[in-house]
């Protein structure tokens, strides 16, 4: 394939492999503090969205959306989802 032959193509494939390996070997340590993840991340781009705005199920969808935009780690996404679901009306 032409892409793989260009040096940029090779660099991209290399980077994906390196990041994946790094990820797989990264230690998976205990629970994260969801409130802290919320404070540290959820006002970086836009103003705070209140946990009360959405139901548990809606937060699940929205946090997946934010995970892809804000590039949160999997652990951060899980922790912030728990925090949002624990602080709404549901």
């Amino acid at each position, binding site marked *: 394939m032409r892409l793989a032959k260009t040096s940029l193509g090779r660099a991209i494939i290399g980077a994906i492999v390196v990041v994946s390996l790094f*990820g797989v070997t990264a230690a998976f340590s205990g629970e*994260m503090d969801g409130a802290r993840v919320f404070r540290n*991340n959820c*006002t970086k781009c836009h103003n705070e969205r209140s946990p009360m705005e959405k139901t548990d199920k809606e937060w699940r969808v929205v946090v*997946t959306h934010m*995970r*892809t935009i804000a590039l949160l780690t999997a652990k951060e996404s899980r922790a912030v989802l728990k925090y949002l679901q624990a602080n709404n009306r549901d």
Partner: protein
Amino acid sequence: MKSKLLTALILGCVFTGLGNSTANAQEGKFALGGYLDWTFTAYEAGVKPSSFNAFHYNPIFLYQVEDNILASAELEFENGGDEIVVEYMQLDYIWNDYVTFTLGKFLVPFGAYNRRLHPTWIARVPGKPLSNIDVVPTGWAEVGLMASGAVGLGENGARVNYSFYVSNGLEGAAGDGIRELRKEGDPREMNNSSKAVGGRLGIVPTAGVEFGVSGYTGKYDAVATPVLNLNMVGVDGEYHYQDLFELRGELNQADQEITPGQYVIKRGYYAQAALKLSITDNDLLMPFELAVRVSGQNFTGVADDIHEVTPTINYYFGSTTVLRLGYSFNGASQGATAYKKVDNQFVAMFAKGL
């Protein structure tokens, strides 16, 4: 146009219908987002007529098909419906904790502005920074394949994140303005079948700080065997003090080949600061925010250098409901010599994030 509107309405109805139905296996898999805004623009010397505009109504439909699969689409109704386009429509497949694949038409993660900040309820100053119009385009979506993800580096919020993509790429006539090279409607290759590659690498050294470097390379001339290169590089950075103060900016450069071997270098920058007056603890000042953006573009002699400074006062009726009052002081200079004033502009904007 009529058929587009009809499709949009049907999509909207089906979607809200599904979202509301309770006795349905799909229940709880939907969410809506998006934004809406209204503007009034006036020019100091009247180069253009002053005008109200129903600028955007952009609903976003989110459908979490499975735990690790999200389908999302943003429908853009712009300028009172004069333009109706699909801003993005994509499927995100979370492969594992570190890699998500995105297939479809996605907003390009070049810098922070295009993917993360341009919606008007988010951007704190009305109008786009000059680094993100004709140097790197905004509202820039590509159809292709992207891999993205993040890896945590300890407990204080540090992480690295990445996005790499291969896509059809920008396409147009030799020497066209870069904003015109976006494929706003049909995102398929028109003539040029070469693919573009690009990406962004972000570093969050500690919570509240992020730096990114971005790159893009492709051939853009609309012919079967394209030869003209378009390469872009950029850096972006941001600093936040709690949710009260932020400072951010981008530096972008595009090297556009106009005829084989002859390049035009286009550079742009922006810096923006915003301070929420809730920092004062004064009840009257609480809903206000002061923001200022400075931006410029330099086409290395091919066109006038232009720059702007836009102080803005924001009044928040709620966290996602805002009235922005901005005044852009616009200027231009040819090379390093003559300076000429370009018409200044006042913008009142009401924006609501959904």
